[in-house]
């Protein structure tokens, strides 16, 4: 039976935005922790750590996010965790975000002039103090714009969780489309909702990037 595309259907899709946001938030939080570890490992003095982190980044940047989702989804099942779209999507997107954020932040850490590190050596600061008080705060300033930019990429990436059965914005659209058969309107609405989420962040990222470029030019 074909349902009309009415107010209930629209509300169902709009309500699903919360799950897209929830999944994005989890993946971003997890990815921030993982990304910091990856970034620090990438600039570590220990050669093995550097290579390990590099391998991790290459692996996740060199394979499709969809395959990463599938592997985690089916892999968890093999490990006895059962079929769990929530867990699989959160874990896969976290691993994915860790690699990307790690690589972005490595670049930011390396952009901090080496004189800053040398000065803190000279002051006798240990690794933790040097990173925590000198290098990371400066890197963080450079990192804000590209990090917001990646957040847009991550929000768009959560749409792939629909393929393993996670009901977020895209999956909600598919469900409604399967009942109403008005794909032009349904996916049009879904696209608009993603745009509303992502566009302000894109503008923010661009604005911060420009402001930063102006600040460093002097």
């Amino acid at each position, binding site marked *: 039976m074909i349902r009309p595309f009415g107010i209930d259907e629209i509300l169902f899709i709009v309500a699903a935005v919360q799950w897209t946001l929830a999944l994005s938030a989890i993946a971003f939080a997890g990815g921030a922790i993982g990304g910091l570890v990856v970034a620090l490992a990438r600039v570590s003095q220990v050669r093995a750590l550097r290579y390990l982190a590099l391998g991790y980044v290459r692996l996740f940047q060199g394979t*499709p996010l*969809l*395959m990463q989702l599938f592997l985690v989804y089916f892999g968890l099942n*093999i490990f006895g965790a059962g079929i769990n779209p929530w867990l699989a999507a959160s874990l896969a997107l976290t691993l994915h975000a860790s690699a990307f954020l790690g690589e972005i932040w490595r670049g930011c850490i390396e952009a901090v002039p080496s004189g800053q590190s040398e000065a803190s050596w000279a002051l006798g600061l240990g690794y933790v103090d040097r990173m925590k008080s000198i290098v990371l705060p400066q890197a963080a300033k450079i990192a804000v714009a590209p990090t917001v930019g990646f957040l847009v990429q991550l929000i*768009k990436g959560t*749409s792939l969780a629909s393929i393993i059965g996670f009901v977020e914005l*895209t999956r909600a659209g598919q469900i409604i489309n399967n009942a109403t058969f008005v794909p032009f309107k349904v996916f049009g609405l879904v696209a608009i909702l993603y745009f509303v989420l992502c566009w302000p962040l*894109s503008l923010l990222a661009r604005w911060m990037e420009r402001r930063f470029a102006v600040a460093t030019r002097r």
Partner: protein
Amino acid sequence: MDYQLKFAPVFDNFGHLLSGLLVTLELSFGAMLLGTLVAIVCAAGKTGGPRPVRWIIDVYIEVIRNTPFLIQIFFIFFGLPALGIRFSPNTAALVALTVNVGAYATEIIRAGIESIQKGQVEAGTALGLKPVQIFRYIIVKPALRTVYPALTSQFIYLMLTSSVVSVISATDLAAAGNDIQSQTFASFEVYLVITAMYLVLSIAFSGLFSLVERMAFNYPLSR
């Protein structure tokens, strides 16, 4: 973990994987080529076009960059038939990938065009070349060289993104994986192998791109 990985069913279907790989390659290279053409035209329009043209290109870029590829391909494959535009799955995949990469590449190539010094255009103008000729003969190549690394990372990302076209039953590598896993239930093993194939593809692509770079941009740069 009691589970034993079973790769035999995967390798029994290797021919199927290879034909999927071929489609992935066709889609990737097709979209790269077409997307670059779209991008060159749009970038030229954005730098030198009249205001309404620039505005339309801006909307195109922002819409594509701020919506998921999955929704774009759904819209093209399921939504456009409502307007009487109907594609086969593989064609829809090519169209969606082209439209997608075109938007990203436009911004990249525009940055390249803006990096060209004004004197280059003036020299062309003074020699009597028309604006289109100046763009074609003087601007395009040095502009592409400047942004080549950014452009090729975008292309590798495009190849990885192409795995999503399996959702509209295009017959790419990921779709071959879906077929095999639904027949053999060796899901993890299938996707492990396919993921490895994608990884090899990305490595091969970056190798190929640096080879092309050395051949196409073999002129020295001034110090």
